[in-house]
């Protein structure tokens, strides 16, 4: 065993020496690296296309004109968001990692508190604030990658969540399209109709730990906001750990997965469930799927192709439990997140790295991206282009939206939320028991003084 470890160390040493020699040989050329959860032909394929055909060549060209020899390498990461986050935490913890990292906004606070990432200004200096792009990024969108008043990255956009359905599946089941439910009862009724018509999985509302944040955002929040409040009380600055709305939310899950078996609980509990749900929807086996517009832009684009997607897939807004019963008294609810790119504080070329980040965030680059994948952009001078459905989703949902609390303890609480839903949809616990276990776990995480319990009934 020790001999083996020694061997590994010697090998590592040899590689380091050789690597150092290699770098020393041509010290005028600079290599920048960037990582995202993106694979050509796979997840976020469009992003790779944009980076490889537009961003990287134009940046290298621009730098060459200024006499700087830069090569940009893209590291395509094919795992899940959770695995990417794990990779980042471990890389940054030992001072490694790519120069530019695609980053989910809600990871920012816990990484900042751990000292793993730094504000853009601290890394690249005053040139960050001189960038002319900031005035075209609305405050609320800048917030997505900010924490305590400091900017840590530039967002690439924001998103909304809605219910997706297939027009052909609905028509065949005798449901009139366009379809727009106004209450949870409507959703359940439609699901029953679909079930009667032989649709295998009438509705899928994400739950369980394997789906990670997709459970919290696409499933739990979409129900909870419709039941009346947020996970966090922004006025009191406390977590709501027990309330009638939380219980209603869990009962809605129980109704779908346990009592009426309108959803496929198995899909929520197996490891690759989310991908399976995408494929099942593309195959016409799922009636309604609550998802973010990522689902429209990426999996549906890749699995169905633009034409088939545009002719078959429709969306409806997620209704509150009853009209007016939603968050802030709304009839319909949704929630937004946002990803973007941050700079690695360990980068050896901070100014060049910022150069790349600002280059890919300028108006021409963002317009170029809209041509490849129309989406809600982060710049107010670049509208969604060439995808009427995407525009319609943004117009209908953005004004109804809210965001997650940008706090370091949120990711851990989100895991507890996922566990709570898992306990209900797997039948392990009743909604009451699962809620109590959740309240107990969150109280332990944040302390008794930071939680609110609203009496049940």
């Amino acid at each position: 065993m020790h001999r083996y470890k020694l061997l590994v160390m010697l090998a590592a040493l040899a590689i380091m020496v050789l690597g150092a020699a290699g770098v020393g040989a041509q010290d005028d050329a600079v290599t920048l690296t960037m990582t995202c959860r993106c694979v050509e032909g796979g997840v976020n394929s469009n992003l790779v296309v944009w980076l490889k055909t537009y961003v990287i060549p134009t940046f290298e060209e621009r730098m060459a004109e200024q006499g700087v020899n830069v090569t940009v390498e893209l590291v395509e990461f094919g795992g899940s968001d959770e695995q990417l986050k794990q990779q980042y935490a471990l890389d940054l913890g030992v001072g490694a990692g790519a120069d530019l990292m695609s980053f989910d906004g809600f990871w920012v606070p816990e990484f900042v508190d751990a000292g793993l990432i730094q504000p853009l200004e601290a890394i690249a200096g005053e040139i960050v604030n001189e960038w002319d792009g900031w005035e075209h990024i609305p405050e609320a969108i800048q917030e997505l990658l900010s924490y305590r008043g400091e900017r840590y990255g530039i967002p690439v956009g924001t998103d909304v969540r809605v219910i997706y359905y297939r027009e052909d599946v609905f028509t065949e089941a005798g449901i009139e399209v366009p379809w727009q439910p106004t209450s949870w009862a409507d959703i359940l009724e439609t699901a029953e109709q679909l079930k009667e018509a032989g649709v295998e999985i009438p509705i899928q509302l994400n739950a369980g730990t394997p789906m990670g944040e997709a459970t919290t955002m696409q499933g739990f929040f979409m129900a909870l906001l419709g039941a009346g409040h947020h996970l966090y009380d922004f006025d009191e600055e406390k977590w709501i750990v027990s309330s009638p709305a939380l219980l209603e939310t869990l009962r809605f899950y129980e109704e779908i997965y346990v009592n009426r078996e309108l959803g496929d609980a198995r899909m929520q509990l197996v490891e690759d469930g989310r991908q399976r749900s995408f494929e099942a929807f593309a195959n016409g086996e799922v009636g309604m799927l609550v998802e973010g517009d990522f689902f429209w832009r990426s999996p549906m684009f890749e699995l169905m192709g633009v034409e088939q997607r545009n002719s078959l897939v429709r969306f409806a807004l997620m209704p509150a439990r009853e009209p007016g019963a939603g968050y802030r008294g709304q009839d319909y609810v949704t929630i937004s997140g946002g990803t973007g790119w941050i700079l690695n504080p360990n980068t050896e070329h901070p100014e060049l790295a910022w150069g790349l980040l600002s280059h890919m965030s300028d108006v021409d680059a963002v317009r170029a991206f809209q041509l490849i994948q129309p989406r809600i952009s982060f710049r107010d001078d670049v509208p969604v282009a060439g995808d009427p459905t995407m525009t319609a989703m943004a117009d209908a949902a953005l004004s109804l939206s809210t965001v997650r609390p940008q706090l370091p303890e949120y990711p851990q609480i989100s895991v507890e939320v996922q566990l709570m839903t898992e306990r209900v949809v797997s039948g392990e616990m009743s909604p009451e028991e699962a809620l109590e276990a959740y309240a107990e776990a969150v109280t332990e995480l944040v302390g008794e003084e930071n939680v609110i319990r609203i009496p049940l009934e």
Partner: protein
Amino acid sequence: MEHKPSIFPARIGILFLLPALFFVAIFLIFPFIWVIIISFTNQTLTGATAANPQFVGLENYARLFDFSRWMRSGEFGASLLITVQFVLGSALIGQAGLGLLIAVLFYRRKGWARRIVTTLAVLAWIIPEVVVAFAWFAYLDRDSGTLNMILSALGLGKPDWLFDYPLLSIIIFNTWRGSAFSMLLFQSALETIPPSYIETADVAGASAWQKFRDILVPLLRGHIATDLILITLWTFNVFTPYLLTGGGPTNRTQLVSIYTYKTAFQFFRFGQGAAIAVVMMFINLTLALIYLSTLRRQRVDA
């Protein structure tokens, strides 16, 4: 102990040992102490406690042994119980049983059947973990797995192996995976039994079962003990099932090794993960001590 003449004086011997001791210290003793220290802190990978961990005394251990939720799905007690079932099923019954069966079946036999079975068992043992896990994942898949294709062709339906019988699946998987070690150990042990014992028994008209029970088992007893303890030790720490089930569904295959990994590297709670690792180390140490004392007793017997 008598003094044996040696080439070098004792002092030079120690000098030669130093490099080895140095690496043992760096790679074994230091991490061991470090893990114990971490287990008394609330160190995490992200968040404020990553930059400034605090000493929390025995809190991490108290949480592990909080009996009000000890057996709840996903907690330490439940994981420990799953691990015990896994070790019993896949190591003690599965690997040792199958290994012994193959070794005895082909005892004093030569030919292609023995060669094929032995080769297959060893192959299953030496293929890289990730390859094996991927193959089994594809094999057991409900809708497009090879096993269910065969079963449904025979009219036996399509059981959902990794969802409805996850623990059984990883037990069968690990039995298949690791029987070769026990088989090889028993085969070589059997070679040491003088053929005259069996020949004499044959002359006396003993049945196969009698030969097995009265000749082979008593002579193999020491080897069986060694085998059982060693594979228990290994199986206790095995992580490969994670590649098959990820510890799920609903934590039903969450072995203690997976529990440790999830706590430390998925939920980033290093302190808590270290506490589990320390408890595991003590369990392993106990098993190792039993193994060593068994070995010593065997040497005395011999």
